[in-house]
């Protein structure tokens, strides 16, 4: 303790000797961060909001003309955009539900006294450590109807996963579930290990069955941390781009971020794509708010 106090005093005195107060030192670290946020986050956000009310095209040298709410009006009346949102919603529901079921289930299995538990947990975490591009290319080969190992193992012949418009979105979701279930598993495992053991002992004394124990003890106590996992994964799934872009080019897998990319960087409709980005941002914020409210309710119980 004495050493710590001495060190602290030494630092203070050294700083003071260089004419730097605590506030100056603090500002030295905070000001660059604030500047970084303003330059790279806040300024582009406001700038793009301005562009969303114009007909600006980055590919032309023509100036941006103010068009009011026209971009928003056209986008919200565009059936293709609504179809992209519907695809995104379907993808989010399938993918996040799958990750919660698989991730939480795996965490339940690992929350026991099993041999090599640490090694198993580490190995199960590997998929989420890989890059999206690598996972996409890897699963593209696995799904290949001619030589892919999935059809070979399941005896599906030349079943088309990625070329089949009805199946392609599920194929992307399966890959996402494989990649991100470990994330849900990790958080669930943390939640499960925090459940007080005496509650299970009390339930056992009361002869409560596994079903009752799970729904009355385990799930309510893990629910807040599971909700955090769901919030993160929903936000990520809503913004998904890489996997769907690499794996397929089906119209049925054109999630909203792919449409946004095409609009901004292939069609160069800069103003319009800024408006779409804002619509997506508002939607993500709305969904996250609903989740957070629900999370608070779960915590209050």
């Amino acid at each position, binding site marked *: 303790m004495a050493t710590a106090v001495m060190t602290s005093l030494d630092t203070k005195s050294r700083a003071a000797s260089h004419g730097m107060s605590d506030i100056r030192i603090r500002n030295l670290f905070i000001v660059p961060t604030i500047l970084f946020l303003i330059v790279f986050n806040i300024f582009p956000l406001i700038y793009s909001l301005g562009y969303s009310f114009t007909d600006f095209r980055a*590919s*032309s040298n023509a100036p941006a003309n103010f068009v009011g709410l026209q971009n928003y009006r056209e986008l919200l009346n565009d059936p293709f955009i609504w179809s992209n949102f519907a695809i995104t919603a379907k993808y989010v529901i399938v993918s996040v539900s799958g990750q919660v079921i698989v991730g939480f289930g795996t965490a339940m299995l690992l929350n026991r006294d099993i041999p090599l538990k640490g090694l198993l947990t580490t190995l199960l975490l590997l998929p989420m450590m890989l890059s999206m591009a690598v996972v996409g290319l890897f699963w593209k080969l696995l799904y290949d*109807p*001619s030589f892919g190992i999935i059809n070979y193992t399941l005896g599906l012949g030349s079943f088309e996963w*990625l070329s089949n418009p009805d199946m392609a979105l599920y194929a992307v979701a399966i890959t996402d579930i494989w990649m991100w279930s470990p994330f849900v598993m990790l958080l669930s495992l943390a939640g499960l290990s925090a459940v007080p053991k005496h509650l299970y002992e009390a339930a056992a004394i009361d002869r409560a069955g596994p079903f009752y124990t799970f729904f009355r003890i385990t799930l309510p106590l893990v629910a807040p941390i599971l909700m955090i996992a769901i919030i993160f994964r929903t936000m990520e799934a809503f913004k998904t781009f890489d996997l769907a872009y690499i794996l397929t080019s089906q119209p049925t897998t054109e999630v909203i971020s792919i449409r946004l990319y095409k609009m901004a960087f*292939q069609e160069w*409709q800069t103003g319009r794509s800024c408006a779409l980005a804002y619509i997506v941002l508002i939607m993500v914020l709305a969904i996250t708010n609903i989740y957070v409210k629900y999370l608070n309710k779960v915590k209050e119980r």
Partner: protein
Amino acid sequence: MRKTMTGLFAGVGLMWACGTSAQAQELTIFWAEWDPANYLQELVNEYEAQTGVKVTVETTPWADFQTKAFTEFNAKGSAYDLVVGDSQWIGAASEAGHYVDLTEFFTKHNLTQVMAPATVKYYSEYPANSKKYWSIPAEGDAVGWSYRKDWFEDPKEMEAFKAKYGYDLAPPKTWAEMRDIAEFFHRPDQKRYGIAIYTDNSYDGLVMGVENAIFSFGGELGDYQNYKVDGIINSEKNVKALELYRELYGFTPPGWAKSFFVENNQAITENLAAMSMNYFAFFPALVNEASNPNAKVTGFFANPAGPNGEQFAALGGQGISVISYSKNQEEAMKFLEWFIKDETQKRWAELGGYTASAKVLESPEFQNATPYNKAFYETMFKVKDFWATPEYAELLIQMNQRIYPFVTAGQGKAKEALDSLAADWNATFKKYGRNK
């Protein structure tokens, strides 16, 4: 102290001056990642040997080419001095001021006569018939076909084909014959399939594939002069062409819904398909035994004729343009003067590039150099291209959105897809004030 500072500034100044001088001795050409870019690098190495100017051909995968190029243009970046840009970019790039106007250069060197007419029309001139030129035809290209000669010339197959269809098995002269042959060789139980066509909808793969059918059926994409599309893009001829393309998709290998030039060459090298559509630029890999174990038994034919005997093909290839934001424009123009020389164009063709020089193309030396050069020469006189207006990217995406579900999943009808496309294109042209 003053002396030290003066020395320091002088040193920095000298370094800066030397740096600028060194920069002028270097040029960077931006192109997509494919074999012709490698041939170009070999060619420009010879330019370096002659002039001391180092030229680097920087490449990026085709999927990113357009995005990366235009991102750099829009940022007015000087990373590249020249670009071998796609033919449909010319409207967007010239109207936005990204390309240097080469009209004077064209006139001075009489390039309208030196280069093959189709290459000048589609790679260089914008707007159409304006006599304003923005690039030098660099890599002439079009879509052609490769086929398995050993499958076609097998006596048992020939006999069976004749018995079933009533005519001899040979490279197809019409799209109807091509459909029959594709059906005949389509044998999924033997892992052999009839045909490999373009289906990738992420850029212009599918659209170019369908264009091959549309143009040969006598159809058009629209009237490029007055932006009229209704009754043209959704004409009866185009409906028939699109229906046949959809039918051909049924004879492709499984999972062929995102296939472009790489997969279509693999269809031949991996014994998957009897016939395969591809740009001529990819055919050198098919006659090379190192990259194609079936090189000796691979044949080539030009895009077949439609029901009325019309025979056209979709244009590929690119022109080379000087980027307005380049700091080495003068050096770039000197390079172009070297590039258009007869001996350079001849050397370009020898290395594997598809020269657009009329003189070289017409020479027996060129036409007999490979099994497909003659077909290429003939094809280059009957090519047509996609819209080159600044809105081409929107038009391309709309066409992909409308025809892809019909071709690969059989959703809806060809007429419905093309009617919807006509409506989309009309709306786009209206939005940009083109069809007033």
